[in-house]
């Protein structure tokens, strides 16, 4: 009976399921894209190859949220510490021209000492003040080639090389250039520290803490775990808002669908009651139909999410692939079913309380 009722109005069923599918897709894609962005950023920073990251006191784990308050000279002191093999100062700047990207100002020699150096797909290392390196992901997404000009941070740079992605940012310029452009002469945002042996990391951190009390000193092996939505100001709120919007869509569509269903089937409800169907029996029918619509919408939504993921990759190649996890698929299902059942509550209550005599007389 439940399935027959659902298929009786195919257009309404289709539209309702699509609405639930959009709800599910919105949840999965919002979470998937933000998680992927966080993870991509974390992996690239981790990919620098340092063992320790030194930042100013109370600095955010996200480099883009920190200015450039540390003198580069600190790097020289860090370099002299026991267990420290190399130190690379990095100045970060957020570029919002054409696209939102982090630009890292690096000292090629020290950055190479810490990271092992770039793998060049084409071109050469940074040499001149207006040189810029782009990684292969950025180059592919923006069709950038060596020798071309690139307008970044309000300045025209010359693309000196295309490097393999995975070492911090997607765009690199000389540290001195970025310091000059941002008015942060001799300043750095972060120091990446390479230890002589990775098992000396904790000992090296102790030394850094003694040298720079109150500074933020983090081991890179724990870095990815710190990249959570709750650590990004506003991201958790953004996710909550997006999920709330998604739930509202499902709630309203299910409400409207079941409300019209109940009104349309008033006489049938009267018949069921004349046969002795209890309020619970009637409510169970409406809620079962709702659950079926939600589960159907969820299945379509999962398929739609994978489709949207492919579309995002095609339209925005520089974005990392959205992470679609089983955990969030389950959450999306629960959110869809819960939102749907919530939307069906009033129509269900209305159906279960219908007077059988009035319902039987309904035309």
């Amino acid at each position: 009976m439940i399935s027959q009722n659902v298929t009786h109005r195919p257009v309404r069923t289709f539209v309702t399921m699509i609405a639930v599918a959009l709800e599910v897709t919105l949840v999965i894609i919002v979470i998937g894209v933000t998680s992927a962005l966080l993870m991509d950023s974390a992996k690239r920073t981790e990919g620098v190859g340092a063992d320790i990251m030194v930042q100013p006191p109370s600095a955010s784990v996200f480099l883009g949220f920190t200015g450039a308050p540390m003198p580069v000279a600190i790097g020289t002191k860090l370099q002299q510490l026991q267990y420290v093999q190399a130190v690379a100062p990095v100045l970060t700047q957020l570029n919002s021209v054409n696209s939102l990207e982090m630009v890292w100002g690096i000292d090629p020699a020290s950055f190479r000492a810490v990271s092992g150096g770039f793998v060049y797909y084409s071109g050469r290392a940074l040499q001149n003040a207006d040189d810029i390196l782009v990684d292969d992901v950025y180059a592919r997404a923006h069709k950038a080639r060596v020798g071309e000009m690139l307008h970044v941070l309000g300045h025209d740079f010359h693309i000196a090389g295309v490097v393999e992605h995975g070492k911090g940012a997607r765009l690199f310029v000389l540290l001195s250039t970025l310091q000059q452009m941002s008015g942060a002469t001799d300043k750095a945002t972060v120091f990446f520290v390479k230890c002589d042996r990775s098992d000396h990391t904790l000992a090296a951190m102790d030394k850094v803490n003694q040298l720079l009390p109150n500074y933020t000193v983090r081991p890179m092996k724990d870095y990815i775990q710190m990249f959570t939505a709750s650590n990004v100001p506003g991201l958790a709120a953004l996710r909550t808002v997006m999920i709330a919007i998604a739930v509202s869509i499902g709630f309203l569509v299910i409400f409207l669908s079941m409300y019209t269903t109940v009104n349309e089937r008033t006489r049938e409800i009267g018949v069921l009651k004349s046969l002795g169907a209890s309020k619970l029996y009637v409510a169970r029918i409406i809620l079962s139909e709702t659950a079926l619509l939600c589960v159907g919408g969820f299945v379509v939504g999962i398929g739609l999410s994978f489709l949207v993921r492919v579309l995002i990759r095609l339209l925005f190649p520089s974005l990392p692939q959205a992470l679609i996890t089983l955990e969030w698929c389950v959450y999306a299902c629960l959110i869809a079913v819960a939102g749907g059942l919530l939307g069906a509550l009033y129509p269900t209550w209305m159906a279960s309380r219908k007077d059988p005599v009035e319902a039987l007389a309904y035309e």
Partner: protein
Amino acid sequence: MAKRCRGLRLELILKTENLWKIYGSGKMEVPALQGVNVEVAPGEFVSIMGPSGCGKSTLLHVIGGLAKASRGRVLLDGNDLATMNDAERTSLRRHKVGFVFQKFNLLPTLDARHNITLAQHIHGNGYDPHRFELVTNLLGLGARLNHRPSELSGGEQQRVALARAIISEPKIVLADEPTGNLDTKSSDAVLSLLRHLNRELGQTIVMITHNPEAATYGNRVLHMRDGMVVDSVVH
């Protein structure tokens, strides 16, 4: 509660005592039933006749537990409906009453088979294949079970509705103008089936009808006017 019927002393299946049903309140009060007293013995086939608006359907709704009486008592198989709440009356309908309506009231999304078994499902005993076969054979529905109501004639739809009403072996079948939407041939067929159910299976039936000829299928005819039973004729 006892009654002498056809020479046998039987417990009554249905009895109403000074039954009133008033719609509205104050100056807007409309009395649909005004002190109705009816007695029905098990195995009886009672027809109720009367002009439109005389309270026939209201009486059927009240004795079937679909509506609550304003005053008076309804005793159905020993249960006093006046003292029952909505859930208890629903349970009573489920187990003791079978309804047949003028407009058939089959569920359009279900085929004939599932319209009939729906009553068993609601009854809670589940599908009983022996009872199902007995009833559908009796009503000549064997070949039409996989058809939806829209694919059935009026007479066939009413036979399905009749099957649905008796599939769970109710104590009483309440039929509200069961031939009101049927042509003469289909009407005769449905009335003959009702009489057959009554005579062969001993099914108690209370039927409302406008049609004097249809009323003669019952072994007793009650005449109603202005919310009151004014006459009773035994055939």
